[in-house]
């Protein structure tokens, strides 16, 4: 495994993060926005694990564990919000949820 440089993992992580950010800003379906957030969280996890393995420090993998716990929390709460929104407005498009818009 000595043949893959650290930069390759970081570049791959950056590319996936950019794809997630583009999805976050262009799509309007709340569930796809949610999946874009998961993509970005995963790309950060990849760079954390890469740093952890290359530097020989286990703190990065522990951080990934906590990121996974927070992502599970976020998915439960976010999907509950989406279901509540669908029940109220019959839509999951975030443009149509404009009750608090000034």
């Amino acid at each position: 495994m000595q043949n893959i440089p650290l930069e390759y993992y970081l570049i791959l992580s950056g590319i996936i993060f950019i794809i997630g950010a583009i999805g976050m800003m262009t799509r309007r379906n709340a569930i796809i926005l949610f999946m874009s957030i998961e993509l970005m969280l995963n790309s950060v996890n990849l760079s954390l694990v890469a740093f952890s393995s290359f530097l020989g420090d286990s703190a990065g993998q522990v951080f990934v564990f906590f990121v996974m716990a927070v992502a599970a929390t976020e998915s439960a709460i976010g999907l509950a919000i989406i279901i509540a929104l669908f029940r109220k407005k019959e839509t999951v498009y975030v443009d149509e949820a404009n009750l608090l818009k000034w």
Partner: protein
Amino acid sequence: MSVELIIFIILGVLAIASAILTITARHPIVSAMSLVFNFLILAGLYLTLNAQFISVMQVLVYAGAIMVLVIFTLMLLNLSDEEKFKYKFDYRKIIAWMIAGAFVVELIAIFTNPSISSPGISPNSVEIGTAQNIGAELFSNYILPIEIAGILLFGAIVGAMVMAKRKITE
């Protein structure tokens, strides 16, 4: 070109392709399926980094639990035709591409900097990635964060039930 590098390139291309399919697919189920694929590919990438425990957790937590929840919600809401939906604001796309371009420029500026030296993978990375080592770290040095994570998960359970339940009084 070594075998490890070939495996990394295959996994990387598949990861990028499934990520692009996730944000461009018209039907949300296609997005969810390609996101599951992306998570499995990332579990393979963690294995190339000798992180066994995180790889197993990726498959269990992300590809298992979280995506089951997402697909369950998709089935519950029964979404179909996205084509009738039109983008109301086009300037959002322009801003999105501008921010993405800024990220790309930043990445290129960082990785073409010749002063960055890459260390090799650590010789003790195999011992670091085991469940034994991660568990020992979690329950010794990180005992307070793991308790806080437990409280957070408990709050999330209660909050999700309160928000998703039907109002009985109305």
